[in-house]
């Protein structure tokens, strides 16, 4: 028994499975075992000396006094000792339970748990008691928390009720303000409806204007397209003209060069003509000298007489030839003079032509430059037209978007118009509901007052309950 007791004390740190069956470890079985074994031991030990073969020569009285009685006393003493150990162990646990029950009776839930030192019914009982103590402490803790929270809630409720009454008063005032605002809103909605109708009409006009604008833009686009085609045609002609002017300039330059060549040749002819005139003058001088010589020869032939007759004929012939040569020389000089005059005239005309060609070349250059300016202007015009076309295209796109937007605006305006009608109806409903809310607020005010009275009573009850609980229960 001492071993079992020590064993159970040592194993006190191992938890007990309260749901498991105890089996032969039950207290009742241990008690029965102790009683039965004690009875058997005392009985047998008392009887043994009588049946022992070594005591056959003794009287029963002697056997009883010498053998049985001392043995029975020893056995009974041991049995009583064992029962005392067992019972003291039981009473220790009963005392511990009683101690804890007294604490419970005083409402003291502090340090209520007991150590489990036996693994029998008492062990289970103490385990359950410890669980009960834990649960009770938890429940009381929760209860105290709940009561504290209830007090706070009650305070807040009281405070909230006052604030609610004030808020309801303010709400009633606000409702009255909303009432007048809703009235004004209804008037505004009616005005807005009228304005919206005008807006819809304006949008429809705008829509038509956008259509017209779109047609105009399309016409402008086609006109600009034609203009671009014309500019292209003009540009082509100008390019051809430019080529012709270049050719003309080339030809003019060639002609000028030819004129210069002719003028050079005329100068050479004039120079040659001067040479011819000098030659003619030389011829005429030679003819005159020859004539003088012929005359001198005739004179000399006349002086020579008969002898000189032949010579006179020759001289006469020479004189005739000299005269003829002089006449021809004169005629040549006249022709050459005339020719020189004509050459000079040609020279002058060539100079004039040269000057005119120079003018013509300058004018051609001017025309070419002006042609280039016109070409540049045409290119710029073409680029400008492209930009105009792009702008017109953008304008067309924008016009289409404006058209779409206008249609959407129109549709939206119609929807808004419908919504404004619905809003007007809703405003009327709000107006009616506000009247009901006003009535409800008055009812809430009455309820709040009664709630405030109930809250005050509830707080008083809670305060009393908390005071009583805290004075009676300690955790």
């Amino acid at each position, binding site marked *: 028994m*001492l*071993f*079992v007791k*020590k*064993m*159970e*004390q*040592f*194993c*006190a*740190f*191992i*938890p*007990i*499975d309260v749901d*498991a069956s*105890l*089996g*032969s*470890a039950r207290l009742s079985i241990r008690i029965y*075992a102790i009683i039965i*074994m004690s009875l*058997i*031991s005392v009985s*047998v*030990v008392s009887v*043994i*000396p009588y*049946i*022992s073969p*070594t*005591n056959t020569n003794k009287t029963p009285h002697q056997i009883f006094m*010498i*053998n049985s009685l*001392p*043995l029975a006393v*020893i056995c009974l003493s041991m049995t009583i000792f064992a029962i005392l150990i067992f019972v003291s162990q039981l009473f*220790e646990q009963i*005392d*511990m339970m*009683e*101690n804890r029950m007294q604490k419970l009776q005083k409402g003291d839930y502090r340090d209520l748990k*007991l*150590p*489990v*030192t036996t*693994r029998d019914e008492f062990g289970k009982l103490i385990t359950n008691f410890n669980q009960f103590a834990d649960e009770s402490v938890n429940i009381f803790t929760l209860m105290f928390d709940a009561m504290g929270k209830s007090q706070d809630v009650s305070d807040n409720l009281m405070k909230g009720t006052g604030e609610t009454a004030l808020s309801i008063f303010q709400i009633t005032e606000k409702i009255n303000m909303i009432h007048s605002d809703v009235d004004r809103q209804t008037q505004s909605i009616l005005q807005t409806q009228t304005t919206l109708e005008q807006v819809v009409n304006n949008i429809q006009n705008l829509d038509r204007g956008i259509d017209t604008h779109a047609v105009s833009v399309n016409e402008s686009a086609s006109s600009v397209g034609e203009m671009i085609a014309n500019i292209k045609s003009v540009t082509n002609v100008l390019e051809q003209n430019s080529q012709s002017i270049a050719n003309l300039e080339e030809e003019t330059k060639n002609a000028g060069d030819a004129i210069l060549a002719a003028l050079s040749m005329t100068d050479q002819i004039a120079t040659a003509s001067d040479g011819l005139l000098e030659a003619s003058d030389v011829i005429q001088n030679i003819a005159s000298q020859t004539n003088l010589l012929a005359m001198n020869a005739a004179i000399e032939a006349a002086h020579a007489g008969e002898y000189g007759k032949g010579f006179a004929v020759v001289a006469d012939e020479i004189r005739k030839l000299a005269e003829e040569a002089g006449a021809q020389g004169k005629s040549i000089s006249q022709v050459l003079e005339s020719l020189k005059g004509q050459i000079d005239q040609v020279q002058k005309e060539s100079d004039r032509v040269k000057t005119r060609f120079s003018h013509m070349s300058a004018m051609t250059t001017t025309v070419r430059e002006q042609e280039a300016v016109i070409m540049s202007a045409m290119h710029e015009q073409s680029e400008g037209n492209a930009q105009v076309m792009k702008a017109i295209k953008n304008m067309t796109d924008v016009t289409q978007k404006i058209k779409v937007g206008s249609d959407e605006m129109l549709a939206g305006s119609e929807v808004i118009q419908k919504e404004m009608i619905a809003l007007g109806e809703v405003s009327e409903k709000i107006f009616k509901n506000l009247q009901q809310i006003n009535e409800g607020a008055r009812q809430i005010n009455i309820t709040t007052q009664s709630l405030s009275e109930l809250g005050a009573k509830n707080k008083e009850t809670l305060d009393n309950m908390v005071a009583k609980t805290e004075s009676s229960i300690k955790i």
Partner: protein
Amino acid sequence: MNKVEKNIEKAFTYAKQPEKFPISLLFLDLFGHLFWIPGAIALALISTIGSPPNYLVAATVKSASFIVVTCILAILPVIKYRIYSRVIMNWKEDWKKAGDVVAKIKRMFLIPIFLSILAVVAFAIELKLGFADVLLVSIIVISAEIIIG
């Protein structure tokens, strides 16, 4: 602090697990297993006071079989101690199993008590208790403990 509160405080110290399994439990178990032998001898001597055959007791105690049986009965608690102390000290791994072990130890302890009484009776009735009977008693004790354990 009254006596009950002192007991409670003392009992709370048991709830803390010691670092080692107490050796005192082994000695108590050994005492339970072997106490019947001196008890039986004392009973035999008392019940036959004045009688000559006490030499039989001395002969029995000196016999080889008696020594072997006593050794076996002495070794058995040591084996139990080694097996069960491990389970009990590692109770956190399986606390239900540890609880079952404690319950088994309690149950097993009833057997040597009961059988020791029988042996004492047998000793007392007939001092000519044969060695085979002593061996039988011991085997019954060991078998019962093994079956229960």
